[in-house]
């Protein structure tokens, strides 16, 4: 790192930069790298030749002044300050023998690379936006011809629609308040209604399961719920003297028929 600039020459621009920098609203910077890039411009050299040591000092001075003026800096600015303070000390001190990891020069060079890359991307963005643009400088056919006969319907959906749909399902689930899931719950009242309607036809012994609604066994919860509801309803009907119940042996199918047939 070139550090052949003397103390006097160094302080003058630094003071100026600090003064200028503080005029700029801290909120105007898009993060520490942006601030560093702005500070680096005061060195008026090619970014490849930038003095990272000088830059680190400018940055630290900026942060110090911001603090003195009680301007609150976001955490990432302070993280960068800490890192630059560390880098500065490593740049100034002779390397520790046997220390592993990247050297101070490598770290400085990477920072310079990052600044140059960011600067390059800014320029590229500006050049891109300065290009002729569709709908501003050049135009598509204003009156596209679409014959209205021979109409074919297609359905459009974008990936964004798809992702949003999925996100919607997910969000809906995650933020659902606690409620009982009722979709698969079959109440005894419902079962009673069903069976009262059906039992009139059941002159012969019929298995209880034949009274279950369509699709009762498509879902474990639905199966348990309908079984329980119909079992209870059957007992209720027997109690009222409407049906008879029989079961061949333990776990054998339960059969019922209308009483008096």
């Amino acid at each position, binding site marked *: 790192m070139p550090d052949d600039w003397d103390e006097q020459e160094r302080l003058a621009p630094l003071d100026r930069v600090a003064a200028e920098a503080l005029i700029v609203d801290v909120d105007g910077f898009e993060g520490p790298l942006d601030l560093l890039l702005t500070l680096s411009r005061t060195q008026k050299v090619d970014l490849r030749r930038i003095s990272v040591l000088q830059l680190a000092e400018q940055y630290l001075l900026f942060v110090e002044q911001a603090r003195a003026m009680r301007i609150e800096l976001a955490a990432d600015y302070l993280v960068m300050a800490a890192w630059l303070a560390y880098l500065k000390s490593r740049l100034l001190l002779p390397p520790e023998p046997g220390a592993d990891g990247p050297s101070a020069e490598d770290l400085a060079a990477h920072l310079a690379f990052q600044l140059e890359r960011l600067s390059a991307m800014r320029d590229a963005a500006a050049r891109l936006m300065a290009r002729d643009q569709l709908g501003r400088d050049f135009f598509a056919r204003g009156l596209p011809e679409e014959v209205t006969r021979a109409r074919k319907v297609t*359905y459009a959906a974008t990936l964004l*629609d*798809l992702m949003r749909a*999925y996100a919607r399902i997910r969000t809906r689930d995650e933020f659902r308040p606690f409620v009982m899931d009722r*979709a698969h719950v079959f109440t005894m009242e419902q079962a009673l209604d069903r069976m009262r309607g059906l039992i009139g036809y059941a002159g012969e012994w019929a298995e209880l399961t034949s009274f279950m609604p369509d699709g009762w066994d498509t879902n474990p919860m639905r199966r348990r719920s309908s079984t329980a509801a119909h079992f209870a309803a059957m007992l209720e009907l027997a109690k009222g003297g409407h049906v008879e119940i029989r079961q061949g042996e333990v776990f054998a199918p339960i059969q019922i028929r209308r009483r008096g047939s």
Partner: protein
Amino acid sequence: MSDVKEVLQGPEKSLFDAPPMGEQERMVEAILFAAAEPVTVAELVVRLPHGADPAEALVHLRKRYEGRGVALVRIGDAYAFRTAPDLGHLMRKETVETRKLSRAAIETLAIVAYHQPVTRAEIEEIRGVAVSRGTVDQLMELEWIRLGRRRMTPGRPVTFVVTETFLDHFGLESARDLPGIKELRAAGLLENRPPLGHGPSEAEDDDGQIGQSELFED
């Protein structure tokens, strides 16, 4: 066309500071191309540089397009480019009506894409409502989903998977390129949390639903 020709032969005093006729022709060509409706000569006069003679430019332009795939036609007082009448048959493909996929369809599609191979029962479990036959049929007809292997579980239910056509339409290399939940959230797509319970627009498919958290693991 007689009026146009008259202008051609008319006095040219006002043209002294106008761009050359070739340039005027380019300008009229661009304006007619980009305009959303036929353009009148009066409007061309307003839009062209001072002193330009759009009527003459139109004569040149019309000539230039004679026998081409498009023609400069006059509609009332106005001019527009139109497909040459003998090529109308080529325009048939242009007549596609695009409709937005219904909410049920897009959600079903999303579930198939994220969870494939997936059975109908699983789709219903995730969406919390029954999947109508029409929805699945529509997605099959669009060739965005197709039948996969049967699941080796009781009943051997059929499964659904997404197709190459689907990947093509959505610009995906594979279904695994779909962003995960973490990424959806990072992109801000998961921000719209319904206030409490179901959003108002969900009334039509408002059934309870079983939370199947293990189905959603990324």
